[in-house]
């Protein structure tokens, strides 16, 4: 089967903790040197509200609520910069209580034909049993969770495979690398542990997600 073509990748970092959303504004980020001033000036602010802030700078989107921080980009040239941006932000806000970290990669592929696309869908989610239960069964979403292989940091990996909403015939593969801090989830610790994990794991997580995605797409013949 010809390899599906990678059309785009995304990378985002999600933190769960206690945040004050109104801090996270483009000018604040630029004032600390974490974004270029021109990027901050040109940023599109969608919402600034005590409970939620959403803005989009040229290559990065911030989406912050009282309990969730997300920064994401779809520009591969800025994947490292995104990690630096989040690390830098919480080196400044070092007393922010944070409990969990998600390092997430997503990939959108286009298949060369609907036939190969359907073959892929059938391979990862065999339909034989479902055909006995319904007509024309189709995969809407497949989600698998398991232990992380590329590091021993606490948490898990969750992979979601779906038809791509952007490319047809296509598939999107989302890899959620979830990290939890040791200790009780009711007792959040400050940021330093999370930032340390992010510094140590960011690159390895992206690489592992890429490798995993390539293996998901391989046919059994290619995998041998």
């Amino acid at each position, binding site marked *: 089967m010809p390899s599906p073509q990678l059309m785009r990748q995304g990378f985002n970092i999600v933190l769960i903790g206690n945040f004050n959303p109104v801090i996270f504004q483009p000018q604040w980020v630029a004032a600390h*040197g974490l974004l270029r001033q021109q990027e901050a000036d040109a940023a599109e602010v969608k919402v600034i509200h005590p409970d939620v802030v959403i803005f989009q700078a040229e290559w990065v989107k911030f989406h912050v609520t009282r309990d969730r921080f997300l920064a994401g980009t779809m520009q591969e040239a800025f994947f*490292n910069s995104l990690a630096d941006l989040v690390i830098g932000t919480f080196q400044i806000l070092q007393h922010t209580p944070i409990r969990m970290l998600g390092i997430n990669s997503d990939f959108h592929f286009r298949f060369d034909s609907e036939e190969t696309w359907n073959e892929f869908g059938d391979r990862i989610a065999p339909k034989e049993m479902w055909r006995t239960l319904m007509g024309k069964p189709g995969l809407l979403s497949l989600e698998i969770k398991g232990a992380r292989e590329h590091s021993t940091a606490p948490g898990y990996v969750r992979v979601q495979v779906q038809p791509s909403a952007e490319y047809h015939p296509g598939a999107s593969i989302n890899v959620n690398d979830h990290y939890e801090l040791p200790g009780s989830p009711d007792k959040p610790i400050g940021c330093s542990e999370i930032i340390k994990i992010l*510094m*140590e794991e960011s*690159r390895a997580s992206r690489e592992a997600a890429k490798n995993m995605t390539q293996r998901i797409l391989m046919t059994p013949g290619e995998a041998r």
Partner: protein
Amino acid sequence: MDNYRSGPRSDEIEISVFGPGYGECILFHLGSNNWAIIDSCMLSDRGDPAPIAYLRDLGIDYTKAVSLVIVTHWHDDHIRGIATVIDRCQKAEVVLSAALESRDFLRLAKLHELNPLPLPFGLEEFIRILRISESGRKFKFAIADRLLLSGSDPGTDVPLSVFSLSPSDAATMRAKKLFLELFPQANQRKDALLAPSTNETAVVVWVGIGDTHVLLGADLEEIADPDRGWRAIVSKSTLGLSNASVLKVPHHGSRSSHNAQVWNRLLIPEPTSVVTPFTRGANPLPTPDDVERIKGLSGKVYITSMPQSRKAVFQSRVVAEFVKSATRSFQPLKRGRGHVRLRRSILAPNRDWNVELFGGAYQA
């Protein structure tokens, strides 16, 4: 390559110098499967550091056989992979330059540990070494005229000794001052720390096994100061050393590392010289003049790897075109296996060295 994997005999000295074009390391068989490692480099972009890979190729258990690991200085080309070497050679005593046993150097290392560099340059390898020390491993620090190892070869009963001949006190003091200057102030930007270009704190090593003596020059340079560099060794050493028959030529054969008194006083007439080239950057070493100078002083000169083609080749046209337009120069680092191996019986110090050349090494 058939002989490559055959190890030295128990009563045989081996000096293996690796110099793939960027990077240098030396493995020394002291007799009876007792090995010393000086520095580390990588022969390929991934995989084990050269010393580990070589000992494994010889079928030697490096976790037990290596008794000494010396890190001569902290330049990239001498320490790539050294933390792995230290970690795996569990029985080895580890020796660092005394310039690094300094509050200010350790402060720099600890500071940069808070913001690790995503790249395999700079202090990263040393930060790993320090983590090993924090888990209980003991380190020794080399200064001028310090005995690092002594004893006798159990197989032949021949006495052996390893000395450090540098750094001098003056060089160490200057380095410590430099580390203090490099420590940032509050509100200063977080840049990575690159090793200062000075080589004056490099550890020069003298190995004596019976009547065989070897001088390993690291990257020490000649400095116009009697208290530092080669002058300090030649004029101030109290060890009375002489008659080394092999020289690992310092600092890739550069003119700046040449001191005539080293050749007159520490070496036999026409010793065997080994040079590791440095092919990175705008000024590769050794230059043709350097080679001629060293040949004029040596019986034989071996260079661990050939000068390499430094033209970059890109798979993608857009990359090739952008690199061409955005850069004045672009030099890929091509790794080879450049390796000069010298062997001789411990009991035959007057015999010629048996020389083998691997992976692009050649006689000049």
